[in-house]
């Protein structure tokens, strides 16, 4: 055992546990969040010598891959698809633009994106990473990430546009409901 290993890991853990946990909680399925955190730090514990100075993006990258593995299993995939299908059904049912708050609408639109695009947006907007750090977490170059984020924003805008009914329709719907 390399001297100082325990101390290095303990410092890494204490500095990043809350952030990794938050990362896990924000990504479905929520019931595996604690397992995801444990698995992520288990990898870090075993690979403590590989952990870079700026550890958080590296830890997010590990968590992302662990989560991807989880989702590959049939059960997890089914749970995710069910969740997305439910979100899609809610968005597609009648006056979605009126029934959903803006936050719900955005989350529904996010659910309609590809994993890569959704992850790019979440790393920046929810995890609060700079684009350079988010690129490291996503396991790609800064240039690639910039393109990915740009496309993700475009797709999200398109999703939102499809979910938000034109203002005129909303008025008409209200009128019909009133009658």
């Amino acid at each position, binding site marked *: *055992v390399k001297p100082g290993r325990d101390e290095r*890991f303990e410092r890494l853990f204490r500095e990043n546990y809350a*952030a990794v946990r*938050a990362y896990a909680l924000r990504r479905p399925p929520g019931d595996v969040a604690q397992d995801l955190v444990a698995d992520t*730090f288990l990898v870090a514990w*075993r690979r403590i010598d590989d952990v870079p100075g700026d550890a958080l993006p590296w830890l997010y990258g590990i968590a992302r891959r662990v989560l991807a593995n989880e989702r590959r*299993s049939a059960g997890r995939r089914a749970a995710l698809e069910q969740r997305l299908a439910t979100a899609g059904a809610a968005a597609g049912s009648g006056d979605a633009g009126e029934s959903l708050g803006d936050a719900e609408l*955005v989350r529904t639109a996010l659910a309609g994106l590809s994993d890569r695009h959704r992850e790019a947006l979440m790393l920046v*907007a929810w995890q609060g990473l700079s684009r350079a750090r988010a690129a490291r977490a996503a396991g790609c170059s800064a240039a690639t990430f910039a393109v990915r984020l740009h496309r993700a924003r475009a797709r999200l805008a398109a999703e939102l546009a499809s979910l938000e009914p034109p203002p005129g329709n909303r008025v008409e719907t209200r009128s019909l409901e009133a009658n």
Partner: protein
Amino acid sequence: MRPDRNLMERVAAADPLPDAERLTPEEEREAEALLARLLATPPEPPEPSGAATRRAPHPRLRRWTLAGVGAAGVAAVAFTAINLGDSESPRTDVVDQAVAARTVAALTHEDSVYHVLQPKRGTGNIPARPSGPFVVESWHSSAGRFHEKVFEVRGGRRGRLVEEVAGLRRPDSRVGPALRYDALENRLHGGGIGRTAEADELPLIDPTGNPGTTLRELEARGALRAAGATRVGGRRAYRLVSDPIDAEFGEQRFEYVVDSETYLPLRQRWSLRRGEEEFGFVSEFLVYERLPLDAHSRAQLDLDRHPGATCAVGAGEVRGKRDLGFANPCPASGREGAARWP
């Protein structure tokens, strides 16, 4: 009107858990517990490239197994010995003890419910019961609560429910009350499960008990030993075998194959030989997971509700919540009647 805000600001505002990075005292305690478990985990050498993306058969369980390793207090020196044993070299007592102790520790946590899914089929020349194959899904706790559902296998898939049993196998006496649901009759029957001291006609160690209890008993008898490394589905695994257990009923043998990382069972084999006769069962565990003990997992230990089920004579006399672990839906008078679910 929809707020006309920057798109990224809208995404940020849609964060479902904006305070997720703030830990409550309880969450801080969870963090400390996890840290302690990780620090107690032997620092294995890094796995081959792509380790982080390779799926373990039971990823959910690894976290809990860490706790098991910590609870067992197994020293790093023992782990080193296990690694030496992987190379199929002659094993030492240290290796045997470590593998057996880790397995028992991983399977007997008191603050957990174990969920198991296993196809099971009878072996030998005198099947004592329908030899299947069946699929058995079960939940059990170290305190003795258990709930088992037996399904037919049809077309290679889980078919209809055949039978369901739930009750309490008292750890100290290895017997206890149980309620059995016959799915074909839609009827509940009372009874007991386990082996009493006088029951010489039954195997000395109950082969239908959960692997944790069985292995702990074998270990306590000094009859459990590691029998080398093997591979199951590409995973490193250890074989644990029992010495022959002599009983009035015959000679029993147990064999378990456990994952080398989680120490959770992958395969189980039990056989009983008496003269020329031999029977037993073999099963592969599709799922063997450890769930934290909470309201949800505890509820899995109860017998399922079966609308319209009737109770056979005596079913209600299997005592209530204190003994079964859940409320008995049958009339307390012990008479035949309709089940009433709470």
